[in-house]
């Protein structure tokens, strides 16, 4: 019953999926599907291909749920990893991205007016928070992270493409991710709501 699933953690849902529970898969899709789709669209720049990536990613969840271990990775992270890998596979096959210019702007400009009205408030808040943090990164670090994660370039491909040593790419990626993590931690603290007492 779906209602029961609403109370389960993502990790508990994966355990249910491992037992062949379709409703649990459905609930996971409802929770993570939209983010997964956004990521796939970003990588593939094509709605249909993105849907394929999400579908295959969730089928991989269905098949391999029994191998998921919750000790280190969250279930949502694991699912996004599966969808991301599939999207990168597809974009590599398409080769279409390869001809596009580097350093393309983040499509942060999805204006408020075109904002999907059904978007959950928390997702919009989170997205804006992460985008703000990304903007604070040094350009070369942001570029390395974006080309790798959204562009599907491996570290060695990036080094070649940007004409810098592989070691430099590795450092940029590490420093960039570490810095992003700090920025997000900071903004979590700032953004947390605290009651104000005036005495």
């Amino acid at each position, binding site marked *: 019953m779906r209602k029961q699933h609403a109370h389960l953690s993502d990790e508990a849902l994966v355990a249910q999926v491992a037992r062949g529970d*379709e409703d649990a898969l459905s609930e996971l899709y409802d929770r993570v599907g939209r983010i997964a789709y956004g990521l796939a669209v*970003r990588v593939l720049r094509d709605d249909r291909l993105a849907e394929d990536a999400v579908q295959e990613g969730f089928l991989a969840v269905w098949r391999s749920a029994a191998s*998921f271990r919750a000790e280190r990775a969250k279930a949502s992270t694991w699912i996004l990893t599966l*969808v*991301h890998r599939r999207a990168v596979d597809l974009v590599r096959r398409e080769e279409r991205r390869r001809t596009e210019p580097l350093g393309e702007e983040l499509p942060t400009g999805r204006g408020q007016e075109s904002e999907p009205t059904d978007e959950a408030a928390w997702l919009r808040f989170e997205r804006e928070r992460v985008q703000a943090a*990304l903007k604070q990164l040094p350009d070369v670090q942001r570029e390395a*992270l974006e080309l790798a994660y959204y562009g599907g370039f491996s*570290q060695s491909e990036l080094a070649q493409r940007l004409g810098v040593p592989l070691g430099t790419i590795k450092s940029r990626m590490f420093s960039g991710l570490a810095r992003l*993590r700090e920025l997000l931690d900071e903004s979590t603290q700032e953004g947390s709501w605290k009651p104000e007492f005036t005495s």
Partner: protein
Amino acid sequence: METGIHELTAGYALDVLDDDERWAYETHLADCERCREDLTAFWQTTEALAIAAAGPAPAPELRGRILTAARAERQVVVPLESRRRRVAPVLGAAAAVAAVLALAVGLWATQLSGDLDDARLALERERQAAAVLADPGARTVSLEAGEGRLVVDDDGRAVLVLDGLDPAPAGKTYELWIIEGENASPAGLFPGQDGRDWVGLDGTVEPGDVVAVTIEEAGGVEVSANDPIVASAPV
């Protein structure tokens, strides 16, 4: 060197490492608490990058398509070997990632249950296997049946890497064999897991030997009457 491999944590979390680096990193991960902690945090940050890309919702039909496809797979009940063949091409790289995650956390889990001698033994076996895989002099032997490869180092120590093998059915186990001419010697048991298996063989292999896997009753056998489901080319 230590710093170098530690830096790969970012690329691993973003899933942008080349294969050989991924292998090296996973081997390192088993022994490095700092990398495991950083990886956990970096995975979280990677998820934030996914959220930063969030946009319009997918078409409403997508969820139904996924559930229909999932249901269709569940209905197909076929013996292990043909099922593996059916699933493997579809699974592809996504399953490899799943297996990678399972492998990494599997090693941690093994380390955590240090109170069991079995776990220590299993860990020792995994360490030895990791050493073979990390050996730059090791060579790869293809499989004639099954999906994956056999990795053999200069001393004849061997690790069988298998993709897409299902866990052994209840009451059964996978058994490894080293076949020299007409003689097959047992070389260990393993339960199998969804995704990638990674098992070191007991004993060593000589040039010309073939490594094979059969399904046996739990506990294994000294002489098998079953056909192998996995067989390597001659070493």
